């Protein structure tokens, strides 16, 4: 499913959190959303999920303005994962997946849960309470929940934040392999430049609610004469700061 964002803005108390954002994500592509804290990444994702009402602009999914699409129909083909959003801690992993599977109307739920349990290596703790898991395990469970409905659009907000390098790499490898086997359009908000370089087909750099550059990682790095995305990001963000 393709996504088009057209002149999207959101104001909170007369301050722009997102200011005139426009970009396209082609079907089955992965786009990285980069930017410092408070640059509007989560607000942009929130608007795409319908959790935040835009002040102006349009979100077009598969050539249809989301205001004209039945919200529940749209949400049934989307999903979201973030380390800042958790599943009920007192319920077991199995119970949480069952509930969300039912909410998303997943057919043959049992085999879908088994599949995800196998793929994401959840077997050892599937009957444990979610609150008793380590952050790495919780992260995988959260990813399993976000894939329960085989979403055609997947929004990931810092999916590997606060994970150790090994678990972080596991999650990245899984997302890469999932993407190769399934038709899914991914928007990935992250602070991890190496992750974005590895997973994304193109990158959008944001600061203070605005897009400051976009293109493939190579294009952006080349434009700014740097050797990697992290150096490029720092250059862009700092030079804009000096200008401001």
């Amino acid at each position, binding site marked *: 499913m393709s996504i088009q964002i057209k002149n999207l803005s959101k104001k909170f108390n007369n301050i722009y959190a997102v200011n005139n954002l426009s970009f396209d994500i082609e079907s089955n592509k992965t786009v990285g959303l980069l930017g410092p804290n408070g640059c509007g990444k989560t607000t942009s994702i929130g608007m795409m999920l319908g959790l935040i*009402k835009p002040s102006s602009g349009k979100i077009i999914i598969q050539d249809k303005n989301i205001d004209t699409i039945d919200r*529940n129909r749209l949400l049934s083909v989307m999903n*979201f994962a973030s380390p800042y959003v958790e*599943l*009920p801690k007192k319920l077991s992993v199995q119970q949480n997946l069952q509930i969300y599977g039912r909410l998303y109307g997943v057919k043959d739920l049992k085999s879908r849960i088994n599949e995800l349990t196998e793929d994401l290596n959840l077997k050892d703790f599937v009957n444990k*309470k979610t609150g008793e898991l380590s952050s790495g395990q919780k992260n995988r469970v959260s990813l399993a929940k976000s894939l329960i409905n085989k979403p055609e659009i997947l929004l990931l907000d810092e999916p590997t934040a606060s994970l150790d390098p090994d678990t972080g790499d596991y999650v990245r490898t899984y997302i890469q392999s999932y993407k190769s086997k399934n038709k899914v359009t991914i928007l990935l908000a992250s602070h991890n430049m190496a992750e974005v370089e590895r997973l994304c087909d193109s990158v959008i750099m944001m600061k203070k609610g605005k897009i400051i550059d976009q293109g493939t990682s190579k294009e952006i790095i080349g434009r700014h004469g740097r050797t990697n995305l992290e150096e490029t990001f720092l250059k862009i963000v700092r030079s804009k700061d000096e200008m401001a």
Partner: protein
Amino acid sequence: MRWHKIYALCLRHIYLISNSLPRIIDLIYWPTVQIFLWGFISKFFTLNSEYYSNTVGVILTAAILYDFLFRVSISYNIMFLEEIWSRNFTNLFIAPIKISEMIASLTITAVFRSLIGLVPAALLAIPFFGVSVFEIGPALIALLFSLYIFGVTLGLLVTAGLLRFGPSFENIAWASLFFLAPLGCIYYPVEILPNSLQIIANGLPLVHVFEEMRNILLNNIVSYPEIFKSILISIAYFVFGVSTFYLAYSGARVRGTLINMGE
């Protein structure tokens, strides 16, 4: 509304309760303590008051009915707060469910959660104090229904407040019922209130429910028009509660408080 979605939402709370023995004990403990406390007070009054001397257990029956209202409302609030406490709020609001399905699931689960606590307490009152709430007869169902609708309404208004003001509104959730209790005329006739407060109190379904309960137990007369009136008032408040919840949800989308809401 789709029942399988409502069932899935109810299942979340069924799992939560069935996973935890302390939670079940907690649900039973407070109504039982309440019943024993009011049972002894009731016993004292029946021995020392002319008003209550011709019938045993008017106060205790009032306590049981009031506790039902309290449990329904507090259950509704707690189930909503559980989503905030567990940081599950965003997950729920991005799932393909309608607000009406969310309200329906909380409304259905609240009654079961309340009955888990209240039924054992009401049954204990029979051997310990010789008081059976079932003496009210078939009218009991109608009185409970009215209280149930009003309890859910209070829950809706508090959860709307949580959506509007965030978790800081939690304290109001606990205080909401105590605020209305003096006007509800639970343990005393409405005539005790000053005239100005009587006008406000008559606008609440509680007065009609508890007046009717006393009428049945003291005079052995059932006035169905009065009970019907209490149900109608409860439904009117319920419609107001639902509208307020929808407004709060819409406002939360504008303010962006639905994302990352949690303790």
